[in-house]
Protein backbone atom coordinates (compact mmCIF):
# COMPACT_ATOMS: atom_id res chain seq x y z
CA UNK A 1 0.00 0.00 0.00
CA UNK A 2 1.34 3.38 -0.96
CA UNK A 3 0.96 6.48 1.10
CA UNK A 4 -1.50 8.85 -0.48
CA UNK A 5 -0.73 12.59 -0.27
CA UNK A 6 -3.63 12.98 2.11
CA UNK A 7 -4.46 10.25 4.57
CA UNK A 8 -8.08 10.68 5.58
CA UNK A 9 -8.28 7.30 7.31
CA UNK A 10 -5.32 8.02 9.51
CA UNK A 11 -6.72 11.45 10.47
CA UNK A 12 -10.00 9.83 11.34
CA UNK A 13 -8.23 7.26 13.50
CA UNK A 14 -6.30 10.03 15.24
CA UNK A 15 -9.50 11.96 15.86
CA UNK A 16 -11.13 8.90 17.36
CA UNK A 17 -8.13 8.36 19.63
CA UNK A 18 -8.22 12.00 20.70
CA UNK A 19 -11.92 11.76 21.39
CA UNK A 20 -11.39 8.64 23.48
CA UNK A 21 -8.62 10.34 25.46
CA UNK A 22 -10.86 13.33 26.09
CA UNK A 23 -13.73 11.16 27.26
CA UNK A 24 -11.38 9.37 29.69
CA UNK A 25 -9.88 12.61 30.99
CA UNK A 26 -11.01 14.17 34.25
CA UNK A 27 -10.14 17.61 32.84
CA UNK A 28 -10.30 18.08 29.09
CA UNK A 29 -10.26 21.57 27.60
CA UNK A 30 -11.13 22.27 23.99
CA UNK A 31 -10.83 25.54 22.09
CA UNK A 32 -10.60 27.73 25.20
CA UNK A 33 -10.24 31.45 24.43
CA UNK A 34 -10.51 34.13 27.12
CA UNK A 35 -10.10 37.86 26.69
CA UNK A 36 -9.95 40.73 29.14
CA UNK A 37 -10.61 43.65 26.83
CA UNK A 38 -8.85 43.69 23.46
CA UNK A 39 -6.05 41.15 23.83
CA UNK A 40 -6.73 37.46 24.40
CA UNK A 41 -5.37 36.19 27.74
CA UNK A 42 -5.80 32.60 26.63
CA UNK A 43 -6.08 31.67 22.96
CA UNK A 44 -7.58 28.51 21.55
CA UNK A 45 -6.16 26.07 24.06
CA UNK A 46 -6.80 22.35 23.88
CA UNK A 47 -5.57 20.21 26.76
CA UNK A 48 -6.31 16.68 27.88
CA UNK A 49 -5.21 16.08 31.48
CA UNK A 50 -4.43 12.43 32.29
CA UNK A 51 -6.34 10.85 35.15
CA UNK A 52 -4.42 9.93 38.28
CA UNK A 53 -1.47 12.17 37.39
CA UNK A 54 -0.03 15.42 38.70
CA UNK A 55 0.07 18.07 36.01
CA UNK A 56 1.84 21.42 36.22
CA UNK A 57 0.51 24.39 34.24
CA UNK A 58 3.66 26.37 33.48
CA UNK A 59 4.36 29.56 31.60
CA UNK A 60 5.67 33.10 32.00
CA UNK A 61 3.78 35.85 33.84
CA UNK A 62 0.69 36.84 31.91
CA UNK A 63 0.65 33.53 30.05
CA UNK A 64 -2.95 32.92 31.12
CA UNK A 65 -2.32 30.05 33.55
CA UNK A 66 -4.69 31.24 36.28
CA UNK A 67 -7.13 32.54 33.71
CA UNK A 68 -7.30 29.11 32.06
CA UNK A 69 -8.31 27.52 35.39
CA UNK A 70 -10.82 30.24 36.21
CA UNK A 71 -12.39 30.08 32.76
CA UNK A 72 -12.55 26.28 32.91
CA UNK A 73 -14.40 26.54 36.22
CA UNK A 74 -16.70 29.29 34.98
CA UNK A 75 -15.33 31.88 37.43
CA UNK A 76 -14.52 34.06 34.44
CA UNK A 77 -16.55 33.73 31.25
CA UNK A 78 -14.56 32.50 28.27
CA UNK A 79 -15.24 33.72 24.74
CA UNK A 80 -15.31 30.13 23.58
CA UNK A 81 -14.35 26.66 24.67
CA UNK A 82 -15.70 23.50 26.24
CA UNK A 83 -14.43 21.78 29.36
CA UNK A 84 -15.39 18.24 30.26
CA UNK A 85 -14.76 15.79 33.09
CA UNK A 86 -15.07 12.19 31.93
CA UNK A 87 -17.03 13.44 28.93
CA UNK A 88 -19.56 15.39 31.02
CA UNK A 89 -19.67 19.21 31.04
CA UNK A 90 -17.54 20.46 33.94
CA UNK A 91 -20.43 22.52 35.33
CA UNK A 92 -22.33 19.31 36.02
CA UNK A 93 -19.26 17.74 37.63
CA UNK A 94 -18.39 20.55 40.06
CA UNK A 95 -19.27 18.39 43.13
CA UNK A 96 -16.27 16.19 42.23
CA UNK A 97 -13.86 19.12 41.88
CA UNK A 98 -11.93 21.07 44.51
CA UNK A 99 -10.47 24.44 43.56
CA UNK A 100 -7.78 26.21 45.55
CA UNK A 101 -7.58 29.88 44.46
CA UNK A 102 -4.47 32.00 44.77
CA UNK A 103 -3.87 32.82 48.40
CA UNK A 104 -3.67 36.54 47.61
CA UNK A 105 -7.17 36.51 46.12
CA UNK A 106 -8.92 36.69 49.50
CA UNK A 107 -8.85 39.07 52.46
CA UNK A 108 -7.04 37.24 55.28
CA UNK A 109 -8.30 39.81 57.77
CA UNK A 110 -11.76 38.29 57.32
CA UNK A 111 -13.35 37.47 60.71
CA UNK A 112 -13.25 33.67 60.54
CA UNK A 113 -11.22 30.98 62.29
CA UNK A 114 -9.17 28.30 60.56
CA UNK A 115 -11.80 25.64 61.30
CA UNK A 116 -14.52 27.86 59.78
CA UNK A 117 -12.59 28.09 56.50
CA UNK A 118 -12.15 24.32 56.35
CA UNK A 119 -15.85 23.66 57.03
CA UNK A 120 -16.64 25.84 54.00
CA UNK A 121 -15.37 22.82 52.08
CA UNK A 122 -18.24 20.81 53.57
CA UNK A 123 -20.90 23.11 52.10
CA UNK A 124 -22.20 20.48 49.71
CA UNK A 125 -22.77 18.13 52.65
CA UNK A 126 -24.29 20.80 54.88
CA UNK A 127 -26.44 22.62 52.37
CA UNK A 128 -28.21 25.87 53.13
CA UNK A 129 -29.26 25.22 56.71
CA UNK A 130 -27.92 21.74 57.60
CA UNK A 131 -26.54 21.61 61.11
CA UNK A 132 -22.78 21.43 61.57
CA UNK A 133 -22.34 18.29 63.67
CA UNK A 134 -19.45 16.83 65.63
CA UNK A 135 -18.80 14.49 62.70
CA UNK A 136 -18.37 17.44 60.33
CA UNK A 137 -16.01 19.08 62.80
CA UNK A 138 -14.01 15.87 63.16
CA UNK A 139 -13.70 15.62 59.38
CA UNK A 140 -12.50 19.23 59.14
CA UNK A 141 -9.98 18.61 61.91
CA UNK A 142 -8.71 15.46 60.15
CA UNK A 143 -8.14 17.51 56.99
CA UNK A 144 -6.27 20.14 59.01
CA UNK A 145 -4.20 17.38 60.58
CA UNK A 146 -3.28 16.08 57.13
CA UNK A 147 -1.66 19.43 56.30
CA UNK A 148 -0.12 19.75 59.78
CA UNK A 149 -2.42 22.55 60.95
CA UNK A 150 -4.65 20.80 63.51
CA UNK A 151 -3.22 22.87 66.37
CA UNK A 152 -4.31 26.09 64.65
CA UNK A 153 -8.03 25.27 64.28
CA UNK A 154 -9.24 28.02 66.62
CA UNK A 155 -6.91 30.75 65.31
CA UNK A 156 -8.17 33.70 63.33
CA UNK A 157 -6.83 33.29 59.80
CA UNK A 158 -5.08 36.66 59.84
CA UNK A 159 -2.72 35.37 62.54
CA UNK A 160 -1.25 32.74 60.22
CA UNK A 161 1.89 32.97 58.08
CA UNK A 162 1.51 32.81 54.31
CA UNK A 163 2.50 29.16 54.24
CA UNK A 164 0.03 28.29 56.99
CA UNK A 165 -2.74 30.11 55.11
CA UNK A 166 -1.95 28.10 51.99
CA UNK A 167 -2.16 24.86 53.99
CA UNK A 168 -5.56 25.90 55.35
CA UNK A 169 -6.75 26.41 51.78
CA UNK A 170 -5.49 22.93 50.92
CA UNK A 171 -7.29 21.51 53.97
CA UNK A 172 -10.53 23.12 52.76
CA UNK A 173 -10.05 21.40 49.38
CA UNK A 174 -9.40 18.06 51.14
CA UNK A 175 -12.65 18.50 53.09
CA UNK A 176 -14.49 18.61 49.76
CA UNK A 177 -13.43 15.00 49.08
CA UNK A 178 -13.02 15.66 45.36
CA UNK A 179 -11.57 13.54 42.56
CA UNK A 180 -9.99 16.46 40.70
CA UNK A 181 -7.92 19.12 42.49
CA UNK A 182 -7.23 22.39 40.68
CA UNK A 183 -4.71 24.57 42.50
CA UNK A 184 -3.66 28.09 41.52
CA UNK A 185 -0.04 28.75 42.55
CA UNK A 186 -0.11 26.58 45.71
CA UNK A 187 3.61 27.17 46.30
CA UNK A 188 3.66 30.94 45.80
CA UNK A 189 5.31 32.74 48.71
CA UNK A 190 5.34 29.75 51.07
CA UNK A 191 8.16 28.56 53.34
CA UNK A 192 10.16 25.40 52.59
CA UNK A 193 8.37 23.35 55.26
CA UNK A 194 4.98 24.26 53.78
CA UNK A 195 6.14 23.45 50.27
CA UNK A 196 7.25 20.01 51.47
CA UNK A 197 3.98 19.45 53.35
CA UNK A 198 1.85 20.50 50.37
CA UNK A 199 3.71 18.43 47.80
CA UNK A 200 3.49 15.45 50.18
CA UNK A 201 -0.29 15.79 50.42
CA UNK A 202 -0.67 16.29 46.66
CA UNK A 203 1.44 13.19 45.90
CA UNK A 204 -0.60 11.16 48.38
CA UNK A 205 -3.78 12.33 46.62
CA UNK A 206 -2.29 11.23 43.31
CA UNK A 207 -1.38 7.86 44.83
CA UNK A 208 -5.02 7.48 45.91
CA UNK A 209 -5.97 7.85 42.24
CA UNK A 210 -7.00 11.51 42.34
CA UNK A 211 -5.99 13.94 39.62
CA UNK A 212 -4.02 17.05 40.58
CA UNK A 213 -3.50 20.09 38.35
CA UNK A 214 -1.49 23.02 39.71
CA UNK A 215 -0.44 26.34 38.25
CA UNK A 216 3.26 26.40 39.02
CA UNK A 217 5.99 28.94 38.46
CA UNK A 218 9.17 27.34 39.78
CA UNK A 219 10.57 25.57 36.74
CA UNK A 220 13.34 23.90 38.74
CA UNK A 221 10.91 21.76 40.74
CA UNK A 222 8.67 20.69 37.85
CA UNK A 223 10.51 17.39 37.13
CA UNK A 224 10.57 16.46 40.85
CA UNK A 225 6.98 17.32 41.63
CA UNK A 226 4.95 16.60 38.52
CA UNK A 227 4.22 13.78 36.08
CA UNK A 228 2.88 15.91 33.25
CA UNK A 229 3.26 19.49 32.16
CA UNK A 230 1.07 21.91 30.19
CA UNK A 231 3.29 24.70 28.89
CA UNK A 232 1.49 27.92 27.98
CA UNK A 233 2.10 31.36 26.70
CA UNK A 234 -1.40 32.53 25.83
CA UNK A 235 -1.38 29.67 23.30
CA UNK A 236 -0.44 26.14 24.19
CA UNK A 237 3.26 25.49 23.65
CA UNK A 238 3.51 21.86 24.73
CA UNK A 239 1.58 19.23 26.62
CA UNK A 240 2.54 15.78 27.87
CA UNK A 241 4.75 13.83 30.28
CA UNK A 242 7.54 15.95 31.78
CA UNK A 243 10.23 13.69 30.34
CA UNK A 244 8.89 14.18 26.81
CA UNK A 245 7.84 17.80 26.61
CA UNK A 246 9.67 19.75 29.36
CA UNK A 247 12.52 20.55 27.00
CA UNK A 248 14.72 23.57 26.53
CA UNK A 249 13.24 24.09 23.08
CA UNK A 250 9.69 24.16 24.43
CA UNK A 251 10.67 26.41 27.34
CA UNK A 252 12.47 28.80 24.99
CA UNK A 253 9.31 28.95 22.90
CA UNK A 254 7.13 29.66 25.95
CA UNK A 255 9.41 32.06 27.78
CA UNK A 256 11.21 33.68 24.84
CA UNK A 257 14.00 35.99 25.98
CA UNK A 258 13.06 35.52 29.61
CA UNK A 259 14.34 31.95 29.70
CA UNK A 260 17.71 32.88 31.22
CA UNK A 261 16.04 34.73 34.07
CA UNK A 262 13.81 31.76 34.73
CA UNK A 263 16.87 29.45 35.09
CA UNK A 264 15.08 26.25 34.22
CA UNK A 265 16.32 22.86 35.25
CA UNK A 266 14.98 21.53 32.02
CA UNK A 267 15.33 18.16 30.42
CA UNK A 268 17.93 18.56 27.66
CA UNK A 269 16.80 18.02 24.12
CA UNK A 270 17.82 14.57 22.96
CA UNK A 271 17.54 12.92 19.58
Amino acid at each position, binding site marked *: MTLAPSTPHLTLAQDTATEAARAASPFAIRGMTVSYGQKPAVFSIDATIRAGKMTAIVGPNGAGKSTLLKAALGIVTPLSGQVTMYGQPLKAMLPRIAYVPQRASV*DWDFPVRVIDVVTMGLYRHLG*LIGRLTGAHRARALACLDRVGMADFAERQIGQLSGGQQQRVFLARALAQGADLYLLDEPFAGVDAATEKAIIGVLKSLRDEGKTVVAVHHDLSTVPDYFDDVLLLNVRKVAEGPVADVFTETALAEAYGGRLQAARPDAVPVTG
Partner: protein
Amino acid sequence: MSGADFVPFSLVPLLIGCLAAVACALPGNFLILRRQALIGDAISHVVLPGIVMAFLVTGTIAAIPMLIGAAAAALIAVAAIEGIRRFGRIEPGAAMGVVFTSMFAAGVLILELSDTSGVHLDVEHALYGNLESLIWLDATGWASLTDPVALAGLPPELGRIAVVALLIVALLALFWRPLAISTFDEGFAATLGLPVGAIGLGLVIVSAIAAVAAFDAVGSIIVIAMFICPPAAARLVTDRLVHQVLWSVAFALISAVLGYVLAGYGPLWLGFGNSVSAAGMIATVSGVILALTAIAGPKRRRI
Protein backbone atom coordinates in the same frame (compact mmCIF):
# COMPACT_ATOMS: atom_id res chain seq x y z
CA MET B 1 -41.53 59.49 82.70
CA SER B 2 -45.02 58.04 82.82
CA GLY B 3 -46.59 55.72 80.29
CA ALA B 4 -49.08 58.41 79.41
CA ASP B 5 -46.21 60.53 78.03
CA PHE B 6 -43.86 57.82 76.89
CA VAL B 7 -46.19 55.56 74.93
CA PRO B 8 -47.77 58.14 72.61
CA PHE B 9 -44.69 60.30 72.06
CA SER B 10 -41.55 58.20 72.43
CA LEU B 11 -42.34 54.49 72.11
CA VAL B 12 -42.99 54.43 68.36
CA PRO B 13 -40.03 56.64 67.38
CA LEU B 14 -37.76 54.54 69.57
CA LEU B 15 -39.02 51.28 68.03
CA ILE B 16 -38.71 52.65 64.50
CA GLY B 17 -35.22 53.95 65.25
CA CYS B 18 -34.13 50.57 66.64
CA LEU B 19 -35.64 48.55 63.79
CA ALA B 20 -34.16 50.86 61.15
CA ALA B 21 -30.73 50.70 62.79
CA VAL B 22 -30.81 46.89 62.89
CA ALA B 23 -32.21 46.57 59.34
CA CYS B 24 -29.30 48.65 58.04
CA ALA B 25 -26.54 47.21 60.24
CA LEU B 26 -27.20 43.60 59.20
CA PRO B 27 -26.48 44.01 55.46
CA GLY B 28 -23.87 46.63 56.41
CA ASN B 29 -21.69 43.88 57.89
CA PHE B 30 -21.37 42.20 54.51
CA LEU B 31 -21.03 45.43 52.54
CA ILE B 32 -18.02 46.31 54.70
CA LEU B 33 -16.44 42.86 54.43
CA ARG B 34 -16.87 43.01 50.65
CA ARG B 35 -15.22 46.45 50.64
CA GLN B 36 -18.45 47.82 49.19
CA ALA B 37 -19.26 50.33 51.93
CA LEU B 38 -19.53 52.92 49.15
CA ILE B 39 -22.56 51.05 47.83
CA GLY B 40 -24.37 51.93 51.06
CA ASP B 41 -23.46 55.56 50.44
CA ALA B 42 -24.58 55.32 46.83
CA ILE B 43 -27.90 53.70 47.71
CA SER B 44 -28.65 56.30 50.37
CA HIS B 45 -28.13 59.12 47.86
CA VAL B 46 -29.92 57.57 44.91
CA VAL B 47 -32.93 56.54 46.97
CA LEU B 48 -34.08 60.15 47.37
CA PRO B 49 -34.86 61.05 43.74
CA GLY B 50 -36.47 57.62 43.39
CA ILE B 51 -38.76 58.21 46.33
CA VAL B 52 -39.62 61.72 45.16
CA MET B 53 -40.41 60.56 41.63
CA ALA B 54 -42.49 57.69 42.99
CA PHE B 55 -44.44 60.21 45.05
CA LEU B 56 -45.01 62.47 42.04
CA VAL B 57 -46.28 59.56 39.96
CA THR B 58 -48.48 57.87 42.56
CA GLY B 59 -49.32 60.76 44.88
CA THR B 60 -48.68 58.62 47.95
CA ILE B 61 -45.64 57.51 49.93
CA ALA B 62 -46.44 53.80 49.99
CA ALA B 63 -43.66 51.26 50.34
CA ILE B 64 -43.87 49.46 47.00
CA PRO B 65 -43.87 52.54 44.72
CA MET B 66 -40.99 53.96 46.77
CA LEU B 67 -38.99 50.77 46.28
CA ILE B 68 -39.73 50.72 42.56
CA GLY B 69 -38.74 54.38 42.32
CA ALA B 70 -35.51 53.72 44.20
CA ALA B 71 -34.73 50.75 41.95
CA ALA B 72 -35.37 52.82 38.82
CA ALA B 73 -33.15 55.59 40.16
CA ALA B 74 -30.42 53.05 40.92
CA LEU B 75 -30.57 51.73 37.34
CA ILE B 76 -30.33 55.28 35.96
CA ALA B 77 -27.37 55.90 38.28
CA VAL B 78 -25.55 52.76 37.09
CA ALA B 79 -26.12 53.73 33.44
CA ALA B 80 -24.98 57.32 34.07
CA ILE B 81 -21.82 56.17 35.89
CA GLU B 82 -20.93 53.77 33.08
CA GLY B 83 -21.62 56.48 30.48
CA ILE B 84 -19.46 59.08 32.23
CA ARG B 85 -16.68 56.57 32.77
CA ARG B 86 -16.68 55.45 29.12
CA PHE B 87 -17.26 58.71 27.29
CA GLY B 88 -15.80 61.17 29.78
CA ARG B 89 -12.71 59.06 30.55
CA ILE B 90 -13.18 59.78 34.24
CA GLU B 91 -12.08 57.28 36.86
CA PRO B 92 -14.95 55.20 38.35
CA GLY B 93 -14.72 56.68 41.88
CA ALA B 94 -15.12 60.23 40.59
CA ALA B 95 -17.89 59.20 38.19
CA MET B 96 -19.80 57.60 41.06
CA GLY B 97 -19.37 60.62 43.31
CA VAL B 98 -20.61 62.99 40.63
CA VAL B 99 -23.65 60.90 39.71
CA PHE B 100 -24.79 60.23 43.27
CA THR B 101 -24.46 63.81 44.39
CA SER B 102 -26.13 65.19 41.24
CA MET B 103 -29.03 62.77 41.50
CA PHE B 104 -29.47 63.56 45.19
CA ALA B 105 -29.40 67.28 44.44
CA ALA B 106 -31.95 66.80 41.66
CA GLY B 107 -34.13 64.95 44.16
CA VAL B 108 -33.93 67.88 46.57
CA LEU B 109 -34.84 70.36 43.82
CA ILE B 110 -37.82 68.34 42.60
CA LEU B 111 -38.93 67.98 46.19
CA GLU B 112 -38.79 71.75 46.72
CA LEU B 113 -40.87 72.36 43.59
CA SER B 114 -43.48 69.73 44.38
CA ASP B 115 -46.52 70.16 46.58
CA THR B 116 -45.92 67.60 49.28
CA SER B 117 -47.78 69.38 52.04
CA GLY B 118 -50.23 66.49 52.37
CA VAL B 119 -47.56 63.91 53.26
CA HIS B 120 -44.45 63.50 55.40
CA LEU B 121 -42.09 64.42 52.61
CA ASP B 122 -40.04 67.59 52.47
CA VAL B 123 -36.39 68.55 52.16
CA GLU B 124 -35.74 68.54 55.88
CA HIS B 125 -37.28 65.08 56.17
CA ALA B 126 -35.18 63.83 53.27
CA LEU B 127 -31.99 65.10 54.86
CA TYR B 128 -32.37 63.94 58.43
CA GLY B 129 -35.55 62.02 58.84
CA ASN B 130 -38.75 62.39 60.65
CA LEU B 131 -38.38 60.26 63.73
CA GLU B 132 -39.82 62.69 66.30
CA SER B 133 -43.03 63.21 64.35
CA LEU B 134 -43.90 59.51 64.13
CA ILE B 135 -46.07 59.71 67.22
CA TRP B 136 -48.97 57.47 68.25
CA LEU B 137 -51.81 59.85 69.00
CA ASP B 138 -54.32 57.11 69.78
CA ALA B 139 -52.29 55.87 72.71
CA THR B 140 -53.03 56.93 76.24
CA GLY B 141 -50.58 54.73 78.17
CA TRP B 142 -49.19 51.20 78.38
CA ALA B 143 -52.75 49.81 78.29
CA SER B 144 -53.03 50.98 74.69
CA LEU B 145 -50.65 48.19 73.64
CA THR B 146 -53.52 45.74 74.14
CA ASP B 147 -56.26 48.02 72.85
CA PRO B 148 -57.15 47.12 69.25
CA VAL B 149 -58.68 50.53 68.57
CA ALA B 150 -55.53 52.34 69.64
CA LEU B 151 -53.28 49.82 67.84
CA ALA B 152 -55.13 50.55 64.59
CA GLY B 153 -53.86 54.12 64.87
CA LEU B 154 -50.17 53.15 64.96
CA PRO B 155 -48.12 55.03 62.35
CA PRO B 156 -47.86 52.83 59.22
CA GLU B 157 -44.10 53.48 59.17
CA LEU B 158 -43.71 51.20 62.18
CA GLY B 159 -45.32 48.23 60.44
CA ARG B 160 -43.25 48.85 57.33
CA ILE B 161 -39.88 48.94 59.06
CA ALA B 162 -40.86 45.96 61.27
CA VAL B 163 -41.68 43.84 58.22
CA VAL B 164 -38.44 44.88 56.53
CA ALA B 165 -36.34 44.15 59.62
CA LEU B 166 -37.95 40.72 60.01
CA LEU B 167 -37.46 40.00 56.32
CA ILE B 168 -33.78 40.90 56.53
CA VAL B 169 -33.25 38.75 59.64
CA ALA B 170 -35.00 35.82 57.93
CA LEU B 171 -33.01 36.19 54.69
CA LEU B 172 -29.77 36.45 56.62
CA ALA B 173 -30.55 33.32 58.64
CA LEU B 174 -31.54 31.36 55.55
CA PHE B 175 -28.68 32.43 53.28
CA TRP B 176 -26.00 32.86 55.95
CA ARG B 177 -23.69 30.15 54.62
CA PRO B 178 -23.69 31.13 50.92
CA LEU B 179 -23.41 34.80 51.85
CA ALA B 180 -20.50 34.21 54.22
CA ILE B 181 -18.64 31.87 51.83
CA SER B 182 -19.05 34.09 48.78
CA THR B 183 -18.10 37.18 50.77
CA PHE B 184 -14.88 35.54 51.91
CA ASP B 185 -13.90 33.76 48.68
CA GLU B 186 -16.07 34.40 45.63
CA GLY B 187 -14.10 32.19 43.24
CA PHE B 188 -14.28 29.21 45.56
CA ALA B 189 -17.99 29.89 46.19
CA ALA B 190 -18.62 29.73 42.44
CA THR B 191 -17.01 26.26 42.29
CA LEU B 192 -19.43 25.14 45.03
CA GLY B 193 -22.17 25.93 42.52
CA LEU B 194 -23.28 29.02 44.43
CA PRO B 195 -24.80 31.81 42.28
CA VAL B 196 -22.25 34.41 43.39
CA GLY B 197 -23.55 37.13 41.07
CA ALA B 198 -27.10 36.74 42.38
CA ILE B 199 -25.86 36.70 45.97
CA GLY B 200 -23.98 39.97 45.47
CA LEU B 201 -26.96 41.55 43.73
CA GLY B 202 -29.29 40.25 46.45
CA LEU B 203 -27.18 41.94 49.09
CA VAL B 204 -27.39 45.26 47.25
CA ILE B 205 -31.17 44.90 46.81
CA VAL B 206 -31.64 44.07 50.50
CA SER B 207 -29.52 47.09 51.41
CA ALA B 208 -31.69 49.28 49.18
CA ILE B 209 -34.87 47.94 50.82
CA ALA B 210 -33.37 48.72 54.23
CA ALA B 211 -32.44 52.23 53.08
CA VAL B 212 -35.94 52.91 51.74
CA ALA B 213 -37.58 51.58 54.90
CA ALA B 214 -35.22 53.58 57.11
CA PHE B 215 -35.96 56.74 55.09
CA ASP B 216 -38.82 57.66 57.46
CA ALA B 217 -36.60 57.36 60.47
CA VAL B 218 -33.36 58.96 59.46
CA GLY B 219 -33.70 60.41 55.99
CA SER B 220 -31.53 59.38 53.11
CA ILE B 221 -28.17 60.79 54.22
CA ILE B 222 -27.68 59.82 57.83
CA VAL B 223 -28.67 56.25 56.95
CA ILE B 224 -25.10 55.72 55.72
CA ALA B 225 -23.94 55.88 59.35
CA MET B 226 -26.40 53.11 60.17
CA PHE B 227 -24.94 50.87 57.45
CA ILE B 228 -21.32 51.47 58.33
CA CYS B 229 -20.71 52.46 61.94
CA PRO B 230 -22.19 49.53 63.93
CA PRO B 231 -20.60 46.79 61.75
CA ALA B 232 -17.26 48.60 61.56
CA ALA B 233 -17.22 48.97 65.35
CA ALA B 234 -18.28 45.32 65.75
CA ARG B 235 -15.39 44.16 63.55
CA LEU B 236 -12.99 45.75 66.06
CA VAL B 237 -14.46 43.79 68.96
CA THR B 238 -14.37 40.24 67.59
CA ASP B 239 -12.67 37.96 65.10
CA ARG B 240 -15.70 35.81 64.36
CA LEU B 241 -18.36 36.63 61.81
CA VAL B 242 -21.36 35.47 63.89
CA HIS B 243 -20.16 37.50 66.85
CA GLN B 244 -19.47 40.50 64.63
CA VAL B 245 -23.05 40.49 63.32
CA LEU B 246 -24.48 40.14 66.87
CA TRP B 247 -22.26 42.95 68.15
CA SER B 248 -23.33 45.15 65.24
CA VAL B 249 -26.97 44.62 66.25
CA ALA B 250 -26.11 45.54 69.84
CA PHE B 251 -24.27 48.69 68.73
CA ALA B 252 -27.16 49.61 66.41
CA LEU B 253 -29.66 49.30 69.27
CA ILE B 254 -27.45 51.28 71.68
CA SER B 255 -27.02 54.03 69.05
CA ALA B 256 -30.76 54.23 68.36
CA VAL B 257 -31.88 54.31 72.00
CA LEU B 258 -29.09 56.50 73.31
CA GLY B 259 -29.28 58.79 70.27
CA TYR B 260 -33.02 59.25 70.64
CA VAL B 261 -32.84 59.95 74.37
CA LEU B 262 -29.85 62.30 74.09
CA ALA B 263 -31.48 64.22 71.23
CA GLY B 264 -34.68 64.66 73.19
CA TYR B 265 -33.31 65.43 76.62
CA GLY B 266 -29.57 66.11 76.28
CA PRO B 267 -29.93 69.76 75.23
CA LEU B 268 -32.40 70.36 78.08
CA TRP B 269 -29.95 68.88 80.57
CA LEU B 270 -27.30 71.24 79.23
CA GLY B 271 -29.61 74.24 79.59
CA PHE B 272 -30.57 74.66 75.92
CA GLY B 273 -34.20 75.20 75.16
CA ASN B 274 -34.86 72.85 72.26
CA SER B 275 -34.28 69.22 71.37
CA VAL B 276 -31.98 68.34 68.47
CA SER B 277 -32.50 65.97 65.54
CA ALA B 278 -32.83 62.36 66.73
CA ALA B 279 -31.39 60.97 63.51
CA GLY B 280 -28.39 63.26 63.78
CA MET B 281 -27.80 62.18 67.36
CA ILE B 282 -28.19 58.47 66.49
CA ALA B 283 -25.55 58.84 63.77
CA THR B 284 -23.29 60.79 66.15
CA VAL B 285 -23.59 58.17 68.88
CA SER B 286 -22.80 55.38 66.39
CA GLY B 287 -19.75 57.39 65.30
CA VAL B 288 -18.64 57.77 68.92
CA ILE B 289 -19.03 54.00 69.44
CA LEU B 290 -16.86 53.40 66.37
CA ALA B 291 -14.25 55.84 67.68
CA LEU B 292 -14.23 54.12 71.09
CA THR B 293 -13.79 50.65 69.57
CA ALA B 294 -11.06 51.99 67.30
CA ILE B 295 -9.21 53.23 70.40
CA ALA B 296 -9.95 50.34 72.74
CA GLY B 297 -11.47 47.46 70.75
CA PRO B 298 -9.72 44.15 71.49
CA LYS B 299 -9.30 43.21 67.81
CA ARG B 300 -8.15 46.53 66.39
CA ARG B 301 -5.04 46.43 64.27
CA ARG B 302 -2.65 49.27 63.64
CA ILE B 303 -1.70 49.59 60.03
